[in-house]
């Protein structure tokens, strides 16, 4: 059920629910924190650049967490960085979303056993909405992750708990 399904044919008027309208507005302009950690950040930048064009989904990097809606944790989260990531997340205004990009931030990746300096998954410090697998993930995979997040936001509800993704 899209927003435009209930468009009146001859007038410039739309009828929808506030929930739908808000969700549509949120998912259509997800501003990400301008923030990258490791080699995944290179793929993220490639996704932002003209060839893959993240901007066509409304994603633009913001230089401040206070103006951002989504944080893409792109790379190895060291223990030293984990405290900073948590702080960045706490500085973002609600509603806020997290995409964990790549094996390192999903579960520690190649550092899972002997990485004495690596946090084994960013979900140990902040709640993650979408995990994107890969090492590093291709830009197509990150785009897929963003589409999954948009689906999640589309079915969010302030009144109902049920927000199952169809």
């Amino acid at each position, binding site marked *: 059920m899209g927003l435009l399904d209930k468009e009146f044919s001859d007038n410039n008027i739309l009828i929808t629910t506030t929930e739908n309208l808000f969700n549509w507005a949120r998912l259509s302009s997800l501003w990400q924190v301008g923030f990258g950690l490791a080699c995944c950040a290179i793929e993220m930048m490639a996704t932002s650049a003209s060839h893959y064009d993240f901007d066509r989904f409304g994603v633009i990097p913001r230089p401040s967490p206070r103006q951002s809606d989504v944080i893409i944790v792109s790379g190895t989260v060291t223990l030293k960085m984990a*405290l900073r990531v948590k702080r960045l997340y706490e500085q973002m205004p609600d509603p806020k979303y997290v995409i964990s990009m790549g094996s390192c931030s999903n579960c520690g990746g190649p550092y899972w056993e002997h990485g004495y*300096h690596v946090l*084994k998954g960013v979900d*140990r410090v902040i709640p993650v909405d979408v995990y994107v697998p890969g090492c590093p993930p291709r830009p197509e995979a990150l785009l897929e992750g963003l589409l999954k997040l948009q689906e999640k936001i589309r079915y969010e509800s302030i009144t109902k708990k049920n927000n199952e993704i169809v």
Partner: protein
Amino acid sequence: MKSFEEISELLKNNFSDIQFEFHPEAKFEPYILVPANKIDTVCLFLRDNNDLYFDSLINLSAVDDFNGNKIKDPQGNEIMQGGTMSIYYHLESIKFRHKLLVKVIVDRDNPSVNSVTSIWNCANWHEREAFDLFGINFNNHPDLRRILMPYDWEFGHPLKKDYQNPEFYQGMRVPY
């Protein structure tokens, strides 16, 4: 371009009071063993001598030789007492195109050596790394802080072979 033997001769002639050990037949790369308390004097000479002119420190790294006595600590973990650690200095002269490997051996229980940061500025972060991961103290270093591990890390130096990773750091679980 100077050969290893020519460099050895130069060092012998200029420092009659220092006991060098020359290893031209070493397994991977010939090296010179320098006493730990003389490394800064020798390095300054290697850089400033007009025939050697080692203007570049390619790399500075440390190795835990782990050759002391194995004992059990009160928790039953195996730890090492005594023994040595090695520090390697890879030098290159960009002008003359020759290279040299210098080695220093320090005491493992209280590793300490003079800093070469005042000779090659790039040694600053290399020495911080060696300090962070092996606990080697570089005397006269301008800023000897941890570089990879968090500044308030109090669980030791991770590349020592008897290192034990902690269960928690600042409320975050560390093991997988």
